[in-house]
């Protein structure tokens, strides 16, 4: 290896450079949060409670994976919460009115998500409007569409078990834990996203685009195409998460996922991904997703009034971001 030729003064011990990164700071805080909750209420670590947390985790976590890649490339998507609702609403409407079978209905639902992501991406890259404005408008359009086509009412439950329902929302027992198949989706997608970002050629492009778009373009990286596909990916993952959720609770609501866009972005930045692009970490996003889920669950268990919940969530996020900023300022030259 090349390490032999490295000068002594620059080669800090490897463990120190690894630990002094935002994602490991997040991991330390997560461990602290878990310990506090476990001490505060022993039920926090009961199989039932862990099963509950793990049941919800993949739904926001899957969206967070797409959002991590998108943020790393320097863009974000505020329409994911609305897509989370519209995707399953389209599927249920088609399937329940007997227009198409459930399989094709799922496919059409995902194609609607592809279209939404493509429109977001094309407007952001080709017309040059910031992703904040484009996806904020898209949030209203998509949410409005979900409300209009359902006339504002949740769709009646889907009660015909079958291959696709099992595939998306089947459950199984593992010891005293009750787990959902969505967990497998989450794990598989996590591995795929982590591989892509850290080890593939595409991952190098994504980071470079977010870090310095003009430099990436000057090296022949197709920045616009990559961004458009990341918008499509994020949108499709939001729709898929919505479908998983809808099948799990056997209902599709046009107001499902309200506010999810901010919660997902919070998960991603709490994990250590830079909001300004260039630096993304899937590992950190997983930590962030578990952290927000654990806080949401644990704060109630340790006796904080439910209405005070957001104070703690906000405060913890702020602490994380301050920590990340301190780590970054110390290690870089501007």
């Amino acid at each position: 290896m090349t390490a032999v030729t490295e000068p002594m003064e620059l080669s800090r011990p490897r463990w120190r450079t690894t630990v002094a990164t935002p994602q490991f700071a997040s991991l330390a805080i997560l461990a602290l949060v878990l310990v506090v909750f476990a001490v505060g209420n022993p039920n926090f670590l009961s199989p039932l409670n862990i099963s509950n947390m793990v049941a919800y985790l993949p739904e926001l976590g899957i969206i967070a994976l797409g959002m991590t890649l998108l943020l790393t490339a320097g863009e974000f998507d505020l329409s994911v919460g609305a897509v989370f609702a519209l995707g399953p609403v389209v599927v249920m409407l088609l399937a329940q009115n007997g227009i198409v079978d459930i399989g094709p209905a799922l496919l059409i639902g995902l194609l609607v998500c592809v279209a939404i992501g493509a429109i977001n991406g094309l407007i952001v890259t080709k017309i040059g409007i910031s992703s904040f404005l484009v996806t904020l408008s898209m949030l209203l359009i998509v949410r409005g569409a979900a409300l209009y086509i359902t006339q504002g009412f949740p769709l009646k439950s889907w009660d015909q078990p079958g291959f696709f329902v099992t595939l998306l929302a089947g459950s199984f027992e593992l010891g005293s834990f009750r787990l959902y198949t969505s967990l497998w989706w989450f794990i598989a997608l996590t591995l795929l996203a982590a591989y892509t970002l850290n080890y593939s050629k595409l991952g190098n492009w994504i980071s470079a685009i977010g870090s310095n778009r003009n430099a990436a373009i000057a090296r022949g990286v197709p920045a616009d195409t990559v961004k458009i596909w990341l918008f499509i990916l994020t949108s499709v993952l939001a729709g898929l998460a919505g479908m998983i959720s809808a099948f799990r609770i056997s209902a599709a609501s046009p107001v499902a996922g309200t506010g999810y866009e901010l919660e997902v972005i919070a998960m991603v930045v709490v994990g250590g991904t830079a909001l300004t692009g260039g630096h993304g970490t899937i590992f950190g996003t997983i930590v962030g997703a578990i952290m927000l889920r654990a806080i949401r669950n644990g704060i109630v268990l340790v006796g904080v009034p439910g209405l005070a919940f957001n104070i703690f969530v906000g405060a913890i996020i702020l602490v994380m971001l301050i920590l990340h900023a301190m780590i970054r300022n110390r290690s870089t030259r501007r």
Partner: protein
Amino acid sequence: MTAEVLRLANLRKSFGSVSALKDASMTLREGEVVALLGDNGAGKSTLIKAISGVHPVDGGEIFVRGRKVSIRSARDAMDLGIETIHQDTSLAPDLSIARNLFLGREPVTLPFLGVFAPLDFTELRRAASALLKRVGISKNLNADALVNTLSGGERQSIAISRAMQFAAKVIILDEPTNNLGVEETHGVLRFVKEVRDAGHTVLFITHNIHHVFQVADRLVVMRHGEIVAEQVVADTDLLTVESIIMGADMSTLLGGSKNHAEAAG
């Protein structure tokens, strides 16, 4: 006279109703450093963006080693051996030196996976370290270090080394000494000479005429989207060049004071 490497014939480019480039023609020869001068808005940036494929031209012809070529993208330019180091925008600061050196040309294993192909990290580090050593900046740089931990001069050196590594015929430098300290500026200028001595042709865009006299063999002056003068550096002087850039006869403006040129030089 050495062989012609790049020839531009009557390049034209407009942005809306603004003609940024009208009828620009010039020739670059093997192993020379050519300085491209001109005031703000003279068309220097447009010209190099045309050659590097960032903004393809509206009309005119480009020849590489006598062969007519079409440059429609950054990739086209790179494939023709034209490497451009854009001002302040050549590197991705959040990526390591090694990843930056190979950005857009990543060595991969399993290439059939397309953009999902895994990077060949062993090759990436080996090549990056070899390169850093070859260009003489390995002493205190680790190929895995992030670019945002480097100084401005180190970043320029990395960017120029990257251009050299792909055996570029023509290396275009857009104000490479901008925002650099005195010592770092000298480092970069020395590096430019080394690049020429290694056989590359360098097109060097700058506002600083003193730098031209230190490293360039020839100079080309642009004004209002046109090339208004081409001179051999050894045959001219600072005052003459300044007056061409300004589009006025500086010697009359300054009362014919030769001292000014000497003082400024």
